[in-house]
């Protein structure tokens, strides 16, 4: 069997697995309530905040914060989710099942990547529709939607392996909270709640190391009026730099994810499952 055939089989089985997992996520009340509920809460908060403005800017606070919140939603909707899925796959025996069937691990990874990506995109599209309806300050055009799609795509390529790396290190699905803790800190210093330019220099440098800031920056560049770039570090969107940093993160996390996932699968056994 050629490598191309193996790849095709993995992809086809992964797509089938991903389609079923996505259907389950989109029809499971708990998952939907979590996604739509948090979406409704965020939009409500932003709508209420929308009455104010920031330091003389003509842009309402709701519109100003909306793209950053969208970026944060992408982060929180992917990293803990894929980490949780991997951790649960160890506890439930799904990973061992994947080991027990021919070419099971390939379709297992493709399937979960697809389901988490689709669910994240579902949330992003939902929020975008809310943005169109409720926030007049946002700028939409074909070119900007292209930027948005590009930022979303590279963010997913970066965040899903990051979640996989973290998930491969978790021994118990109940430990997913450990993943959320540093994410919350990074979101807090990513310029979502307050422009990064107003933070101390050391905190700015720290935030710039991580992908969360750059995802938020990319979202802002895609949806806010040009004039708002003045609030950002260096007074510009630095979109090229955002793509470059996210690409580096994607490469690093992908390189780390492959051996860590192999290690996770190798360590999985029936005895571990019984424990």
């Amino acid at each position, binding site marked *: 069997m050629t490598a191309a055939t193996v790849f095709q089989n993995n992809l086809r089985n992964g797509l089938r697995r991903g389609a079923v997992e996505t259907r389950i996520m989109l029809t499971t009340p708990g998952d939907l309530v979590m996604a739509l509920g948090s979406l409704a809460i965020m939009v409500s908060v932003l709508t209420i905040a929308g009455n104010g403005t920031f330091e003389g800017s003509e842009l309402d606070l709701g519109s100003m914060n909306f793209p950053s919140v969208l970026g944060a939603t992408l982060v929180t909707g992917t990293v803990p989710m894929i980490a949780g899925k991997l951790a649960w796959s160890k506890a439930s025996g799904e990973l061992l099942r994947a080991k027990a069937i021919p070419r099971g691990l390939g379709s297992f990874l493709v399937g979960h990547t697809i389901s988490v990506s689709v669910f994240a995109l579902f949330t992003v599209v939902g929020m975008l529709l809310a943005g169109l309806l409720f926030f007049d300050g946002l700028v939409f055009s074909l070119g900007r939607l292209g930027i948005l799609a590009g930022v979303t795509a590279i963010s997913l390529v970066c965040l899903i392996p990051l979640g996989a790396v973290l998930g491969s290190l978790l021994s118990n699905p109940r430990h997913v909270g450990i993943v959320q803790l540093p994410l919350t800190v990074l979101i807090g210093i990513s310029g979502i709640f307050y422009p990064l330019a107003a933070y101390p220099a050391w905190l700015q440098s720290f935030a710039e190391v991580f992908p969360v800031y750059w995802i938020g920056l990319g979202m802002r560049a895609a949806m806010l009026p040009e004039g708002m770039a003045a609030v950002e570090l260096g007074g510009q969107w630095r979109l090229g730099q955002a793509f470059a940093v996210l690409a580096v993160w994607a490469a690093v996390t992908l390189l780390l994810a492959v051996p860590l996932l192999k290690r996770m699968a190798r360590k999985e*056994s*029936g005895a571990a499952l019984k424990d």
Partner: protein
Amino acid sequence: MSAAVSVAGLTMVYGDKRVLDGVDLEIPAGEIVALLGPNGAGKTTTMEILEGFRGRSAGTVEVLGEDPQTAGEHWRSRIGVVLQHWEDHANWRVGEFLGLLRDHYRPFGDCWDTAELLDVVGLESKKDSVVKVLSGGQRRRMDLAAGLMGHPELLFLDEPSNGLDPVSRRAFQELVAKLNRDLGITILMTTHDLHEAERLADRIVVLIGGRVHVEGTVAELNEETGAKAEVRWTEDGRRHVEFSTAPLELIDAVRARTGGEMTDLEVRRSSLEDTYLAMVARVHAGAAFSANEPEEEAR
């Protein structure tokens, strides 16, 4: 008959703990073999090495003619695995789960049609049911179906009927026996249910302390361990009970003594449970009992 499993000198060491210590095992194709032993005896480790789930420290292992440690995906498609604990794919429908497995096995050769397989395991009406609503017995049948999907030549069953109620357990055991009888699948199972082992297995292998202490049919094990049959009869209006390793000779002796007067005769041969418990007790007491034991332990 060719060997489905051939193991020689299998050793597994974790740190300074020797979990398996020179296990030799031969399973001819078409047999059902039960691997018994107390907790920590090395049953699961042995199974996982044979399934290709973990490596080994020493020894040679051949499963269906290949070393599981290096065997590829085609070899994987020739074996079926049913573990004790599965909670996966709980939100999937039974049919779509088995359909996905079918897609995995199909490139490697013949595999079951999903509807046919559901019929074989008695879940034909559950194709559209969500896995998590299946009863314990139905879930085990689905797990068995998953293990069978690729028409395996060798099926591993790890405590297959653990946690099932007596009716489900009996039905499951009958299904396993039927699969072996009708399809000729070689089965290696572990179990703590000695009635199940006695009922299903052609041969029993008892692992204690990482070594094969004894193996054979139930009758051979009884003989080897000197297990006694219980003989009860009425003589001169009184009930008598005696335990003997040679019940027929005992009966002959009583008949000769009483001139054939021996009524209400009952003979209960030693069960596998009696034999096994006696064996474990003797091992714990430090007694050597088996001709198969390594020399150094027999001394």
